[in-house]
């Protein structure tokens, strides 16, 4: 584990090579470097997991220290990592899913002139993300946090010649800045309170010093959660994520579905002790998560851009993860994070394959009937949809069900009901997507239809691997069976203190099996109802959605325009800020600052207009003044 640094260092080396010399290297080599770096990082991570598993469950905790970054008085920040089951899961997801998406990108980005730049950014992203999840203190985590934000900006605006893409990049960056500001304040408050930023030291001190519900801990956790709202796209800062779909599709899969946006969930889980000490924050997290889950799902119902539907779905699924964390089921939240990384990466890559096949078409109203033309994409996409809808035995079933179950167990009836409804919406909009894209009559542009082709092998193989993971990924956490909670048992030591504080059952005194089984039945029934409804609306009677849209025109308009949230922000935040900036420019900048600068200049000009008469240009005058000066000096000396 002393060599754990190679895991983030490998992608960084790939970034340096491709970033510095990528344009002069052959294309094939660029792709090999980028994927090789990720593949090696994944192997190193697997080896680390192997070493970690040799330890006893409570001894799986390493803090390799590399060097002291800051030392001032008692305050010290090291560049050091924290390797424990939680960060291990994240490392494996980032390197594993990241590697598959890198391989996919070789095929997807093949024609793009910015090929080396793309891979350089992608590697830089992976490196920053690994730094984020491996950090053992808030400051190093913040470096990674900002690093992934930067890469997100660069990759959303990758096709920067396109106005909408560069706008979306800026929007993502600025909205994230708001969250990061809260996060930074949280770090300051943590430092002010504990005098340290090291996770272990903070948690130990917090357990000793603060009773449950102390205002300081509530403040810290809420501020940190503001950061998570920005990065993980929760209400009210979710608006950047749907626009982030302007980036290349593999970027959407890697950054805006599988890894970066889950950083907030990871951070909350990492600070589980602090959150457990602040019940108010926990409730807040759960409420925001649940609201976002349902809110985003409802918008996803009527969107027509295949990637935007998936984007709202991501926002919604992130809400579920926060719901899990908020009700104290950190394991369930992280579990859903992992399975979501599998199936959402798969869905995005599948969508990318469709877009690739249709020469850039993203509107599902202009697709249809692609099932026979894109068999691999179709099969894998359906598997991903079944997984996200929560159909047994796909991965999403186990993780989402655990969140729902834990929500109910913690006594949040209302949240459970909402989340269950959201699950139904999820199933509906996903299968709406499947039916409109792959079934029915072709509504394609005849020109595009002519060129439709199945994905090349570099794209198809990652799809198949991810499809397999979407199917099997949930089997590491099977409830109700002896020894079925492999994943939970692995993570439990990390959340030990938090679950003790929350008085959790911790898997030992399990609630009755029949209840769990019954709730599973309810979840699957709701998901199947959603799918069946989608079938009835979009397969059997394609005119029905149109009629419904006409009948509920107002509701449809609200959903279609995403509740007018963007317009609302534009009117209440963006425009007033712009006006304030404009008047500051006019009054403070132009009048005050420019006036002071110009005033200094003109004052000296008018002063010099008087003084410069002395300078006649006549040598005699100068000689005379030298003489006069000499005489004055002489008199002065004599007078002394």
């Amino acid at each position, binding site marked *: 584990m002393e060599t754990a640094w190679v895991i983030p260092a490998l992608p960084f080396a790939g970034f340096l090579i491709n970033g510095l010399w990528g344009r002069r290297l052959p294309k094939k080599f660029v792709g090999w470097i980028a994927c090789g770096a990720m593949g090696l990082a994944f192997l190193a991570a697997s080896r680390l997991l192997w070493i970690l598993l040799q330890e006893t469950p409570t001894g799986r905790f390493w803090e390799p220290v590399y060097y002291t970054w800051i030392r001032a008085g008692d305050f010290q920040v090291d560049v050091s990592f924290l390797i424990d089951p939680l960060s291990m899961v994240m490392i494996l997801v980032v390197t594993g899913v990241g590697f598959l998406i890198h391989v996919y990108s070789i095929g997807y980005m093949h024609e793009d002139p910015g090929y080396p730049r793309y891979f350089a950014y992608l590697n830089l992203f992976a490196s920053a993300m690994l730094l984020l999840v491996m950090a053992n203190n808030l400051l190093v985590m913040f470096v990674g946090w900002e690093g992934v934000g930067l890469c997100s900006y660069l990759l959303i605006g990758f096709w920067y010649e396109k106005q909408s893409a560069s706008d979306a990049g800026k929007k993502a960056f600025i909205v994230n800045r708001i969250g990061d500001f809260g996060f930074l304040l949280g770090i300051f408050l943590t430092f002010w309170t504990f005098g340290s930023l090291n996770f272990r030291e903070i948690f130990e001190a917090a357990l000793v010093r603060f009773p449950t519900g102390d205002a300081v801990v509530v403040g810290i956790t809420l501020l940190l959660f503001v950061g998570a709202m920005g990065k993980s796209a929760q209400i009210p800062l979710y608006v950047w994520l749907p626009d982030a779909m302007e980036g290349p599709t593999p970027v959407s899969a890697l950054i805006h579905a599988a890894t970066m946006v889950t950083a907030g969930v990871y951070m909350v889980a990492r600070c589980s002790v602090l959150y457990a000490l602040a019940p108010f924050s926990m409730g807040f997290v759960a409420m925001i998560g649940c609201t976002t889950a349902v809110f985003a799902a409802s918008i996803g119902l009527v969107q027509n851009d295949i990637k935007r539907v998936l984007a709202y779905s991501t926002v919604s699924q992130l809400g579920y993860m926060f719901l899990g964390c908020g009700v104290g089921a950190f394991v369930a939240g992280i579990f859903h994070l992992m399975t979501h990384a599998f199936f959402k990466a798969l869905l995005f890559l599948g969508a990318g394959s469709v877009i690739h096949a249709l020469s850039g078409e993203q509107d599902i109203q202009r697709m249809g009937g692609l099932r026979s033309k894109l068999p691999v994409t179709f099969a894998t996409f359906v598997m991903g949809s079944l997984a996200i809808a929560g159909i047994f035995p796909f991965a999403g079933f186990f993780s989402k069900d655990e969140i729902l179950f834990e929500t109910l167990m913690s006594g949040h009836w209302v949240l459970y009901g909402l989340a269950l409804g959201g699950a139904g919406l999820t199933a509906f909009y996903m299968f709406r997507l499947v039916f409109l894209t792959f079934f029915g009559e072709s509504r394609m542009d005849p020109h595009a239809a002519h060129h439709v082709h199945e994905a090349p092998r570099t794209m198809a193989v990652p799809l198949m691997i991810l499809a397999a993971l979407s199917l099997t990924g949930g089997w590491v956490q099977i409830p109700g069976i002896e020894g079925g909670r492999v994943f939970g048992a692995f993570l439990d030591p990390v959340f030990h203190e938090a679950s003790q504080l929350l008085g959790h059952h911790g898997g030992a005194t399990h609630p009755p099996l029949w209840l769990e089984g019954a709730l599973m039945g309810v979840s699957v029934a709701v998901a199947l109802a959603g799918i069946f409804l989608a079938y009835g609306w979009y397969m059997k009677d394609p005119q029905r959605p149109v009629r419904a849209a006409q009948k509920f025109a107002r509701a449809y308009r609200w959903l279609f325009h995403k509740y007018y949230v963007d317009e609302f922000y534009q009117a209440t935040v963006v425009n007033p800020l712009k006006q304030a900036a404009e008047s500051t420019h006019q009054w403070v900048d132009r009048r005050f600052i420019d006036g002071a600068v110009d005033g200094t200049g003109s004052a000296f000009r008018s002063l*010099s207009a008087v*003084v*410069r*008469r*002395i*300078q*006649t*240009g*006549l*040598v*005699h005058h100068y*000689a*005379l003044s030298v*003489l006069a000066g000499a005489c004055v000096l002489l008199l002065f000396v004599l007078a002394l």
Partner: protein
Amino acid sequence: MAVPVHYYLIVSALLFGIGVLGVLTRRNAIVIFMSIELMLNAGNLSFVAFSKALEGLDGQLFVFFVMVVAAAEVTVGLAIIVTLFRNWKTIFVDEVRLLKG
């Protein structure tokens, strides 16, 4: 019989005064130059006089330095005057007054 030192100093002061007047009143650059030489040599005279009166060699040593500096100054000064004449066709300093406020 030795002449008292203040006689030399009076002559030196007179020479210096003539030099100053020359610099201040004459227009011709070469005459100004000569006046400067007069001032330098007034200084030299004082040096030598003091050297004799105080019975030390320091003053005479300084005179050599002054003469070297004067020689160097003449070289540069004459070069400037020649260039001035080539460009302006004049060596009257009050006609050359571009550098003014």
